[in-house]
């Protein structure tokens, strides 16, 4: 009864308050704009992936035609890119673009997908530097704030709407004098404040979840589990801020004091702490210079070219099974070139391993301290739910690495054996297909952050409940 009465009164109060109506309208516009922005990015990524797929098919078709023409007695278009040579067919001309479809909810959370590469041209020359080329050296968390999508609006701006609607939920009643009449009725302050907050939470959650569902319906393709995870996280995160506001109100201070404390909390939890964690990660685990890495790559390459014979000998020592096809003092050109490439790759792996280790340390630090900021936790879960988080990109990269190995294993023996290729081999050339993660993987990763966030909400609600339970009079 109290709940229904207060809800109806709240509706009237809101309808009669132009400032709140304007705040809600502004946020509705922000939400829709963010959604449109995210959808535009998703379309762009879809088009790029589609172009990669078309490119693969076109290259294969062109090679097929040329190989058929050569078999029919024609000449290769250029003696330096004869498709019959395995280092050409498996090299630049035949390269296969491995692309990652946009995550299921990319339109809602662009996440890492505009920072991390979602396609690679895989050939026999694919090596560690291919994976580093597009990689962000700066901590991606720093840059994630960049795109104005629903995840951004939810994590960074939604708390402000929540606070605007709830910072004075009790203090205003006291300051305008209505609390005396309210508490002279057979209702507790806790019940009235809970009902008032419930109404405001319904508004905020309705807006956030409504626009999210609109985006999900418009783009389609997301599993029920991901939609549930997304909406659940949005609701839990909004509840966190409502619970915080309720707790601050339960301290029975003035509206101005509440506003100061709550905006301060927003600043610390949403802006300062995430930034501080990123800065700390950068200072404690600085990434080795990228210039250093490129220099190392060049040195290795020069070195390798200068000592190609020596390298070939060492290579054959390492791979005695290849030795029968190659004469040591007169090696095939392709085999020699490959030996150099392989040596460069070996050196590169050493250099990039250091880089990767530092990056892993950085990420580990960020992951450890993300529990300090509910904003970081919510953001992590939201982009994971959207399929645009670190994990899905790491999975993609690891599958591309495996695919690149497969590609090399297909072509390198032929290079070393100086074999010629023909059109008949094209259907056997490996192709890339991304195997997406299972819903269980996402659930496992997000369980701890969500439980932690839920725990915070429960803790603060209990604190608020206890504090509000002590409110008896109007003073």
């Amino acid at each position, binding site marked *: 009864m109290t709940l229904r009465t207060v809800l109806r009164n709240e509706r009237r109060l809101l309808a009669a308050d132009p400032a709140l109506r304007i705040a809600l309208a502004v946020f509705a516009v922000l939400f829709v704009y963010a959604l449109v922005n995210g959808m535009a990015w998703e379309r762009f990524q879809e088009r790029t992936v589609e172009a990669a797929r078309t490119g693969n098919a076109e290259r294969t078709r062109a090679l097929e035609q040329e190989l058929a023409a050569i078999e029919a007695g024609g000449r290769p278009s250029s003696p330096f890119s004869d498709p019959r040579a395995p280092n050409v067919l498996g090299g630049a001309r035949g390269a296969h673009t491995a692309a990652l479809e946009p995550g299921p909810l990319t339109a809602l959370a662009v996440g890492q997908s505009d920072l991390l590469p979602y396609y690679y041209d895989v050939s026999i020359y694919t090596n560690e530097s291919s994976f580093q080329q597009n990689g962000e050296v700066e901590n991606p968390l720093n840059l994630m704030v960049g795109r104005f999508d629903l995840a951004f609006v939810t994590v960074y701006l939604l708390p402000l709407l929540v606070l605007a609607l709830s910072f004075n939920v009790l203090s205003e009643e006291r300051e305008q*004098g*209505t609390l005396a009449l309210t508490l002279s*009725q057979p209702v507790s302050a806790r019940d009235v404040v809970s009902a008032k907050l419930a109404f405001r939470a319904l508004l905020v959650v309705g807006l956030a979840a409504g626009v999210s569902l609109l985006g999900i319906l418009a783009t389609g393709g997301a599993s029920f589990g991901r939609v549930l995870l997304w909406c659940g996280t949005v609701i839990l995160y909004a509840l966190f801020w409502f619970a915080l506001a309720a707790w601050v109100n339960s301290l029975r201070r003035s509206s101005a004091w509440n506003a100061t404390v709550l905006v301060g909390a927003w600043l610390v939890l949403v802006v300062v702490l995430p930034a501080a964690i990123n800065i700390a990660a950068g200072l404690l685990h600085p990434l080795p210079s990228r210039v250093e890495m490129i220099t190392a790559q060049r040195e290795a390459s020069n070195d390798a070219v200068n000592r190609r014979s020596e390298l070939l000998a060492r290579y054959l020592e390492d791979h005695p099974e290849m030795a029968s096809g190659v004469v040591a003092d007169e090696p095939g050109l392709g085999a020699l070139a490959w030996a150099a490439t392989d040596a460069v790759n070996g050196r590169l792996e050493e250099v990039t391993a250091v880089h990767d280790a530092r990056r892993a340390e950085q990420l580990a630090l960020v992951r450890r301290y993300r529990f300090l900021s509910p904003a970081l936790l919510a953001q992590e879960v939201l982009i994971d739910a959207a399929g645009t988080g670190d994990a899905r990109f790491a999975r993609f990269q690891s599958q591309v690495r495996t695919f690149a190995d497969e590609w090399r294993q297909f072509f390198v023996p032929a290079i070393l054996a100086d074999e010629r290729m023909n059109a008949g081999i094209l259907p056997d050339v490996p192709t890339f297909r991304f195997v997406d993660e299972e819903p269980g993987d996402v659930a496992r990763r997000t369980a701890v952050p969500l439980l932690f966030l839920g725990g915070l909400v429960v803790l603060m609600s209990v604190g608020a409940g206890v504090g509000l339970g002590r409110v008896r009079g109007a003073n």
Partner: protein
Amino acid sequence: MSEVLTMDAPSASEAAAPAPVLEARALSKRYGDVEAVAGLDLRVGPSEIYCLLGPNGAGKTTTIHLFLGFIEPTGGSVHVTGLDVAAEPLESKRRLAYIPEQVMLYRNLSGLENLEYFAALGGRGSLAPQRLTDILVGAGLPPAAVRRRVSEYSKGMRQKVGVAIAIAKEADALLLDEPTSGLDPQASNEFSELLASLRDRGVAVLMATHDLFRAKESGTRVGIMRHGRLVTELSTDEIGHADLERIYLEHMHE
């Protein structure tokens, strides 16, 4: 007005031996070293209008807040229709109506909407708009103001909405804190008439006031408080206006 006041009159047997509707037993409230209320014993029966007189800081408002459960007593107890306020705060408030000195309402809502809300909170359920309007007009609010925003109301008009909220609650007891302060003589007089009609319905009224004239006019009994204690109780039938003023001043100068 009378059609909006539907409280049941007490039965004959109750009138013969009225149990107190409001009762304070050895009630005290300390704030640090200050004793706001000190061992107060007070009984207000049905159809009684008990006026608490006393200077500022005598403990009148504190007493009313103790009846409402807004503050906890440091000693003794308060009872509403026999219910201990500390043990059953919500149930006892169901039986109490309260009009604060300054009736503050939701400024952006109309008098009607305010009444509807507080009446529903008071446990009266949803009353029909016509019935609510009747109560407001019965309490003296001009019909044209019923649907206007409270931000356009005068203090007296807000006070009338407060009265309407109290009437709509159909409570056993009414607590009033300086109800006539700031009201013009006519409004003040209307207020007295209203109290009389409530008394006729068997409601117990406890009113804190500075207004000796109004206390003598409307009250059935007056109690003079000083330093948290009841220094004397008088029946208004037995004294004249001048007597009350003299007695009051005597106690203040002791």
